[in-house]
């Protein structure tokens, strides 16, 4: 169990600054998810920790040791790749045993450890792993083998680069839960890169949100989801509505309507609220304390299975609101808890 720390790491490719000075501590024994849109620098950060990328500036520590100058072979991390990166010419057993064979461990012990780790990742039938090649397995099973290959060498840190994004939704959901269980069971420090906010929230103890080479916010999944600190954070986490607003002391003007406001923003601002936080109610509803209320006209509703998504015109913008019940088109009131409404100054 080691703590991973990066200090002010920078990386530039040509003219593109992939990392603009990221500093962060990844807690020992915890699962940290690095979340962000593609091109935000999350994979670059992960690969800098693995050693595949030499950072231009800054330092990387594993435990107490600085590893900034060490090649990837000597860092003691193990990585799980998006495309599994299993070696198709080796058997399943050969794939998992590779790292141990490099360490010149006796063949008997290798056997014992490989079979044990394959059991741990629940690969199923262990009898034919020495004859079958990875291609004979499904995607989900292949990623289990890749995970076994990484865990069997007992790495200091487990690095995962979008390991589930090539799998279909059902397998992804299931493996997500298993990854979480395994990581807690072994107690290994794990860093998990993903662009899927739901996955990050579900898996991680700590979520690190990145945008354009910078770390935007770090916190527990609950913090990140409920208290986004920037417009980007609020927008990225969940299906959100962005409305232009004008903030003043005690009030906020949104699409020509005035609502109560107690926040610090003044002047031009943007109001962000998730579709799932908006209740669609009758136009006769009166304003209640602690609720922000807007008036609009429902134009269209789509049935998405778990809920209906309503498209409501408020002034000249369309607001999305999710609710379990269908609703006819026409005038409605949008009611949202004021602590779920984020206002950011521009």
């Amino acid at each position, binding site marked *: 169990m080691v703590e991973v720390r990066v200090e002010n790491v920078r990386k530039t490719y040509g003219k593109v600054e992939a990392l603009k000075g990221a500093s962060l501590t990844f807690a020992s024994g915890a699962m940290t998810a690095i979340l962000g849109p593609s091109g935000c620098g999350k994979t670059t950060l992960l690969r800098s920790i*693995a050693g*595949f990328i030499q950072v231009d500036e800054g330092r990387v520590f594993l435990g107490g040791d600085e590893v900034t100058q060490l090649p*990837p*072979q*000597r860092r003691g*991390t*193990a*990585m799980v*790749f998006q*495309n599994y*990166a*299993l*070696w*198709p*010419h080796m058997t399943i057993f050969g794939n998992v045993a*590779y*790292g141990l064979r*490099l*360490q010149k461990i006796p063949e008997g012990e290798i056997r014992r450890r490989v079979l044990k780790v394959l059991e741990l990742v629940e690969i199923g039938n262990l009898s034919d792993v020495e004859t079958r090649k990875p291609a004979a397995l499904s995607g989900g099973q292949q990623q289990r083998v*890749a995970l076994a*290959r*990484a865990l069997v*060498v007992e790495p200091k840190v487990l690095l995962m680069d979008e390991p589930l994004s090539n799998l279909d939704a059902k397998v992804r959901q299931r493996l997500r839960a298993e990854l979480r269980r395994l990581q807690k069971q072994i107690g290994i420090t794990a860093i998990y890169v993903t662009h899927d906010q739901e996955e990050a929230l579900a898996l991680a103890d700590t979520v690190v949100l990145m945008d354009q080479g910078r770390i935007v916010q770090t916190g527990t999944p609950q913090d990140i989801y409920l208290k986004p600190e920037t417009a980007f954070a609020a927008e990225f986490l969940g299906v959100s509505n962005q409305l232009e607003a004008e903030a003043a002391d005690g009030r906020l003007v949104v699409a020509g309507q005035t609502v109560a406001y107690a926040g610090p923003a003044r002047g031009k601002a943007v109001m962000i609220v998730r579709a799932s936080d908006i209740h669609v109610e009758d136009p006769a509803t009166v304003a209640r304390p602690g609720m922000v209320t807007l008036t609009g006209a429902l134009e269209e509703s789509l049935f998405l299975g778990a809920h209906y998504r309503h498209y409501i015109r408020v002034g000249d913008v369309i607001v999305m609101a999710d609710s379990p019940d269908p609703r006819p088109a026409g005038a409605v009131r949008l009611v949202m808890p004021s602590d779920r409404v984020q206002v950011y100054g521009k």
Partner: protein
Amino acid sequence: MAGVVAAAVIIFGPLSSLVIWSFAEKWYWPHLFPQQVGFFYWAKVLQGDMLRALTDGFLIAIVVTILTLVITIPLAYVLARLPIPFKPLILMVFLLPQAFPQLPVFVNSTTLLYRVNQGGKFWGVVLIHMVGALVFAVWTMTAVFKSVPETLEEAAINLGASRFKSFYSVSLPLATPGIIASTLLVFLYSLDEFTGTLLVGSPFVLTLPVYMYRTSVGYELQVASISALLLMVPGIVLLVLLERYMKSEYLSMFGRI
């Protein structure tokens, strides 16, 4: 059906005339078939110069293939994997001899080789063959190594493998079918190469295509037919093998080098 027949005639027509010629001991106009058939010329060929041309040709092809592999495998790997500057330029250099008309290139090489005392010698012919062979080999093998995903090697390096170990245990075995295909191409190229061999090697180095040319110019059509038939055998055998090892993804990689 008519198409198949037409194709068979077009392919096997000339071939059958070669077969007939190889057995013809006496065949004068206007007879449709030889007046006398037998193994006279086959026997003559198998005793004489022909065998020397056959063994020399194979020896040259084997040496060319081995040298090309030794140079190309590391070079292609480096070109495919490492961020080297001027990569397109390096690849272009190998293509350059093919960009100009063959004859002037070979004539100039010949004068050059004679100046360093390699004209008419085994190694001179090997060198001139390698000019062409390297083009095939470098381009195909770079494509082959490119078709092995880089993350496969990263996974090995990540677990502690050295760069060489990751090449040896991951990229090389996965590239083997492509390397075999490329090897066969080089071998066939060397075996069939004519212009360079004739210019550089004459009169002392004799390979099958040069031998065939000489005999047919001397109007010994029987001997020329027999050497043509013999020259076809390795070509057919190797092409059948090639078809087994060549993967379409290698070809699709060509554009992405």
